[in-house]
């Protein structure tokens, strides 16, 4: 457990293991109670909260979330209003709230939003320290996103929408693979074999905010390439990138036709229609098939399985998933109530059932929640469990802020991979172009 936490010190490790020993005697609790995880907070009298969150990807999420909200209101007598917006629309709204100093007290948003206006956010170091201690620590990516100076937390991680490779077991088997390959070389061989068998896979290469960014970032990172280094110098025009793009070119030849036009919904549609044997996606494809009344789709659900993205020359997992944060804005009149709300929602009693209700769409940010039964109730869920553990922040390996947000929104990496994969540009040209485009964002 401690291995997965970069910042865990030996002292903390001892404390945690002591906690494990203590917990083992108490009973079958899934988290480790740290003796020092203490929380005292008195919400303001007459407090009212407004929360803006990304709208659900799955009904169970919002149903359970609202139940938890009601439990909070009942316990503290604090009225909470929840507004929902499509996840891509939360970003501008949150920015306007930050700028004007008015709007929701708490916003649940995505990726590097908190890094755009850290000075407008309430410091939540005490809350994150408490939760981290109580629940086995935060995954490293949480700190990359929300603890930019290594000391202060500017938001509370909520989790992420995990992505894995979604594939048809029978078709992978028919292509001569008993197990899904774990490395990029084996993966390319599999994709070639699938193409030969007439059951190709496919990945979105259009301007797809979610699916496009997710797999193209994995692709370049898996080959050791990155957009920027730790000091925000643009280093995308590198031999590693060229390698990654040459790989992409070969991979693209095996795709189903039309992936250059694919937006976020296309791979779901193609997969569920049986036209695509492998793609990268959240758990939604599986659930659409599993919960469908169509016997053909139910049959397909039995044939669907998931695997984490293959490991490339970089030697470590290099995934990108949709990260969720929780931000408290300084303009709130009730910072203590807001903190209490987030704490309440993150506690096992609330967060555990919420994870289960979200049927695997949301992966936990806290290590202890790995043991949530949602990940084992169906073995096909398990790969999504590690989404937070093995992901990197968007804008890796640099600092997050306007430059990383702008570069991602402008599809620089997606376009580069699409250009090279489709042969519209050579890998060298595509990398040079991406370098120039990215340098404009990282100029300051």
């Amino acid at each position, binding site marked *: 457990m401690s291995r997965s936490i970069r910042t865990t010190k030996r002292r903390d490790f001892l404390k945690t293991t002591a906690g494990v020993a203590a917990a083992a005697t108490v009973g079958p609790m899934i988290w480790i109670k740290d003796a020092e995880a203490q929380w005292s907070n008195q919400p303001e009298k007459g407090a009212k909260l407004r929360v803006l969150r990304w709208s659900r990807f799955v009904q169970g999420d919002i149903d359970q979330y609202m139940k938890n909200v009601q439990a909070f209101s009942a316990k503290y007598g604090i009225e909470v209003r929840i507004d929902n917006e499509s996840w*891509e629309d939360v*970003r*501008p709204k*949150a*920015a*306007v*709230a*930050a*700028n004007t100093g008015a709007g929701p007290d708490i916003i649940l948003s995505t990726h590097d939003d908190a890094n*755009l*206006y850290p000075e*407008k956010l309430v410091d939540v170091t005490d809350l994150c320290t408490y939760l981290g201690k109580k629940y086995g620590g935060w995954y490293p990516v949480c700190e990359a996103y929300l603890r930019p100076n290594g000391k202060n937390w500017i938001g509370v991680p909520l989790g992420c929408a995990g992505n894995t490779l979604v594939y048809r077991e029978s078709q992978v088997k028919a292509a001569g693979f008993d197990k899904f390959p774990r490395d990029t070389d084996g993966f390319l061989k599999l994709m070639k074999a699938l193409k030969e068998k007439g059951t190709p896979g496919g990945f979105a*290469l*259009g*301007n*797809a*905010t979610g699916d496009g960014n997710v797999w193209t970032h994995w692709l370049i990172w898996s080959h050791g390439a990155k957009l920027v280094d730790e000091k925000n110098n643009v280093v995308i025009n590198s031999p590693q990138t060229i390698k990654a793009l040459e790989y992409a070119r070969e991979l693209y030849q095996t795709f*189903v*036709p*039309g*992936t*250059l*036009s*694919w*937006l976020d919904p*296309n791979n779901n*549609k*193609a997969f569920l*229609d049986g*036209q*695509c044997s492998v793609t990268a996606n959240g758990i939604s494809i599986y659930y659409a098939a599993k919960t469908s009344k169509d016997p053909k789709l139910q049959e397909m659900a039995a044939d669907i399985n998931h695997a984490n993205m293959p490991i490339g020359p970089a030697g470590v997992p290099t995934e990108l998933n949709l990260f969720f944060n929780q931000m408290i804005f300084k303009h709130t009149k009730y910072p203590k109530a807001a903190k209490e709300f987030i704490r309440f929602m993150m506690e096992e009693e609330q967060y555990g059932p919420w994870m289960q209700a979200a049927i695997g769409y949301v992966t936990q940010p806290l290590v202890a929640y790995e043991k949530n039964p949602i990940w084992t109730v169906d073995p096909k869920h398990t790969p999504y469990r590690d989404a937070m553990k093995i992901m990197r922040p968007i804008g890796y390996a640099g600092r997050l802020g*306007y430059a990383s*947000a*702008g570069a991602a*929104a*402008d*599809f620089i990496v997606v*376009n580069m991979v*699409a*250009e090279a994969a*489709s042969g*519209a540009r050579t890998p060298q040209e595509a990398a040079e*172009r991406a370098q*120039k*485009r990215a340098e*404009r964002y990282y100029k300051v």
Partner: protein
Amino acid sequence: MIGFPSPRFRGEGTLHHATVARLVHALVNRLQNNRNALGLLFILPAGALLLFFLTYPLGLGVWLGFTDTKVGRGGHWVGLENYVFLFGDSVARLSLFNTLFYTVVASVIKFALGLWLALLLNKHLPFKAFIRAVVLLPFIVPTALSAIAFWWIYDAQFSVISWTLTKLGLIDRYIDFLGDPWNARFSTIAANIWRGVPFIAICLLAGLQTISPSYYEAASLDGATPWQQFRYVTLPLLTPIIAVVMTFSVLFTFTDFQLIYVLTRGGPLNATHLMATLSFQRAIPGGALGEGAALAVAMVPFLLAAILFSYFGLQRRAWQQGGKD
């Protein structure tokens, strides 16, 4: 312009009530009898609306274009930096090309088809009213909805066109409507044409109906062929309407957003990014409000050029005033 009765009353607080009442009365009287003042008064609400909802946002947009404002963060004046940046940006230049190509090709075809349709509808047809209503349908359907329909029609896996052609044995693989840069450009243009033709057709039809039949009678008595009637009677009399309709059409096409956003989001490889969609992408999801505003403002000169062309090129032809060109 309204004119106070006398400046010496200003600022004096010791006037008798009666004097004040008399003064107000005189003022109101004068106002009521002053056409300029009344006109100004009546125009005031409209003026305020224009100022508030048009001039202010436009002014703000222009100003933002000169700043480095981010969504959520105020900006500083940076002069022409955004414009210099955009000029050196290959994606922005590509979007300019896409926008011009999209506008020119779509507008020319929309005009040709619209005029043709208008001429057909102007003939005596059975169920005339019904047919005219049906023709308007593409224009009435919300763009976002028709765009979603086109998205399915063009889908790489589920395209009904590809399906039909495959079943007929005419092609052996699905057409990559939106996955190939040039296919995508023409596909989006086709969708735009489908939506835009009814507007032009109905407007031109209205124009056609204002042309008195006596001209055609006179022309046919003089032995004019149908082509000559069209060329020397219909076209000259229709030109003012054409100018207005095409100005609008060009403006709508140039600033198109929804269709592209639903169909391609500017892809593939940014081949269908119009200035409007790129402006949004940079300003809102990308957070660079200043740059996005600059990109939007960069559209204004092209729009002005289109308006001026139609105004001076088509509307003020001397022959329309009975003179010669």
